[in-house]
């Protein structure tokens, strides 16, 4: 094979262009930007639910649906409240009509009348996404449309979710669902758009009883963090190894 000087120059220029042009798709970060990208976040969001304070009014569910534009009358919801009634015969009766949105105004549980004399204990348990440290939903997403932020919250990219439902299947807590309008996976994100601007999540904001509170675990002076650190708190279903970050005060062993 021969190569004239002219060919050599032509190929060199072509080759250089071909290799440089795709490089322009990358952006160069400034030192500060690069440091910020890899530095450990100073925030780790967590949630504290005091079940002893919840009265099952359902305001949190209402607020959440409105704030996050989840169709109001759709059966799916980002947060919900469960009612537990444990009777003397050891039976556990649970319900959450419309996710507890309208409160629990009926004494009947699924049309079953329960004699107040038969009740050992009864209580409400609010549920929401646990923003796990080891989230099964993030692990199984085939396209990386759901991901964990530096401050621990799991988010969903609505423009990239293919709607396969694998994350819904993988979540042991049943917090995920298909958004009826967006047709992509959806779930609670602690109102990320609010907390990242220094506001409270909608459900926390509207809870008149202080049953729901948000904490930054990395801030030792955060009053809620202090409670999580010093009180006896529990989490839901820790046997799945997901390391959930919604902590409960007064959680009964019978809660599923």
């Amino acid at each position: 094979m021969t190569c004239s000087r002219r060919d050599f120059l032509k190929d060199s220029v072509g080759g250089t262009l071909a290799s440089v042009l795709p490089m322009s798709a990358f952006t160069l970060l400034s030192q500060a930007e690069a440091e910020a990208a890899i530095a450990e976040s100073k925030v780790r969001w967590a949630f504290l639910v005091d079940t002893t304070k919840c009265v099952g009014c359902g305001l949190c569910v209402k607020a959440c649906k409105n704030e996050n534009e989840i169709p109001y009358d759709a059966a799916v919801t980002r947060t919900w409240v469960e009612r537990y009634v444990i009777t003397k015969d050891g039976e556990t009766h649970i319900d959450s009509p419309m996710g507890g949105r309208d409160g629990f105004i009926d004494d009947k549980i699924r049309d079953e009348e329960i004699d107040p004399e038969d009740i050992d204990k009864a209580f409400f348990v609010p549920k929401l996404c646990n923003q796990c440290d080891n989230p099964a939903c993030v692990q199984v997403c085939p396209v990386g449309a759901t991901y964990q932020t530096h401050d621990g919250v799991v988010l969903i990219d609505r423009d990239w979710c293919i709607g396969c439902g694998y994350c819904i299947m993988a979540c042991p807590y049943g917090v995920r669902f298909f958004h009826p309008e967006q047709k992509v996976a959806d779930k609670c994100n602690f109102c990320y758009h609010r907390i990242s601007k220094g506001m409270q999540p909608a459900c926390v904001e509207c809870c008149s009883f202080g049953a729901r509170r948000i904490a930054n675990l990395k801030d030792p002076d955060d009053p809620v963090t202090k409670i999580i650190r010093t009180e006896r708190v529990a989490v839901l279903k820790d046997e799945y190894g997901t390391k959930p970050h919604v902590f409960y005060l007064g959680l009964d062993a019978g809660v599923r």
Partner: protein
Amino acid sequence: MIDEPIVHGIEWTVKELFVYPNEFIYWSIQIVMYPYMTGLVAGAFVLSSLYHVFGQKDLKEIAQFSLVFSLALLPVAAVPLLLHLQQPTRAMEPLLTPHFTSAIAAFGIVFTTYALIVLSEIWFVYRKYFVEQVAELKEKPGLSNAMKRMVYRVLTIGAYDVSDGAIRVDKKAAKVLAAIGIPVACFLHGYAGFIFGSVKANALWMSPLMPVIFIMSAVVSGIALCMLTYIVIMEWQAFRQRRGGGLEVAGAIKGAEKEVINKAARYLLGFLVAAISLEMLDLIFRGYTAMKSWDILRSVMYGKDFLNIFVLQYTLGNLVPFVLLILPRRTLWRTVLALLLVLFGVFMMRWNVVIGGQAFSLSFSGYMHYEIPIIPHSIETFKEGVFGALTVISLPFIFFWIINKFVPSLRRDTTSI
């Protein structure tokens, strides 16, 4: 009130006792079809490899057929996945931005690899035939022959050498490809099992045995479908010969058919035993270890789904065909009945895994029933209903009919290798 948008799954999910508000049967009939179709692909390929790799000469005829049939089945394995996506236009994303911690992410890669293997193996097997067709059609007049010749010329990709040496290379290449194809086919399907087996949130699915169970039942269903289709086509050919007066040819066809079916039935029985043993092991293990989920699992398996699991799957789909196949003096009709039952049994197994896995709430305090939509009233209820499933089932036969026009896998005079 304005029309509320419909929640996905609400139309076919019936809840009983306490179920979390967001729980529905999200994975319905199409996800039953997905492992079923993938299983058929893998099984058909393994059957064809028995001839190409292990030199089971008496399987040559069904091997040619099942190789081409597995190509017809291949695109259909991806159709259910496409149909069940909420965002089908984004179906290519797993290939563009694969997130490899997900078991689904590798699907495109495994699937494409496998498709390339099947395509190239068919090319090597039929290359000589393509070349001959190009020469033969040259003599024939007419536009259709010219067009056909054009197709064959493209199919040869310019490789016209049919000397003994070249054919030897073809044979070797086909053998190597078939050999690589076996683990890839098993991987393709074992991996479908992994998608379910690795979901730790699901008490029924989570089991390391799941991929192996899926492979075994895949081979069972693949062999059964190939045998069945083969019988139907051979009977049709013999019938046509008889009508045309070719009694001798008809007899020859019937004789060859019987031999092939006897041999294939033996393999079918072997894999069937392996599949049932593994499933039984899984069931016994769950009962013996009796983890937290066992109470609800037991109530589903021995109660709500007893008919589906023990009557339809194990008895009608496994035990009855096993007896039918193993008893002496087996007739063709008995074989056909047994094969149909085997196919039904494997389908029920997929159903019981996919739908059964969603039959109970994650709270272990309630149940969900899948009421399969029959008459569709929306695209959703079509896709996730009976007609969606029937569409998927009929596609491979249409594809096979088209492919077979150019790659005659059933003609006994074909000069394939």
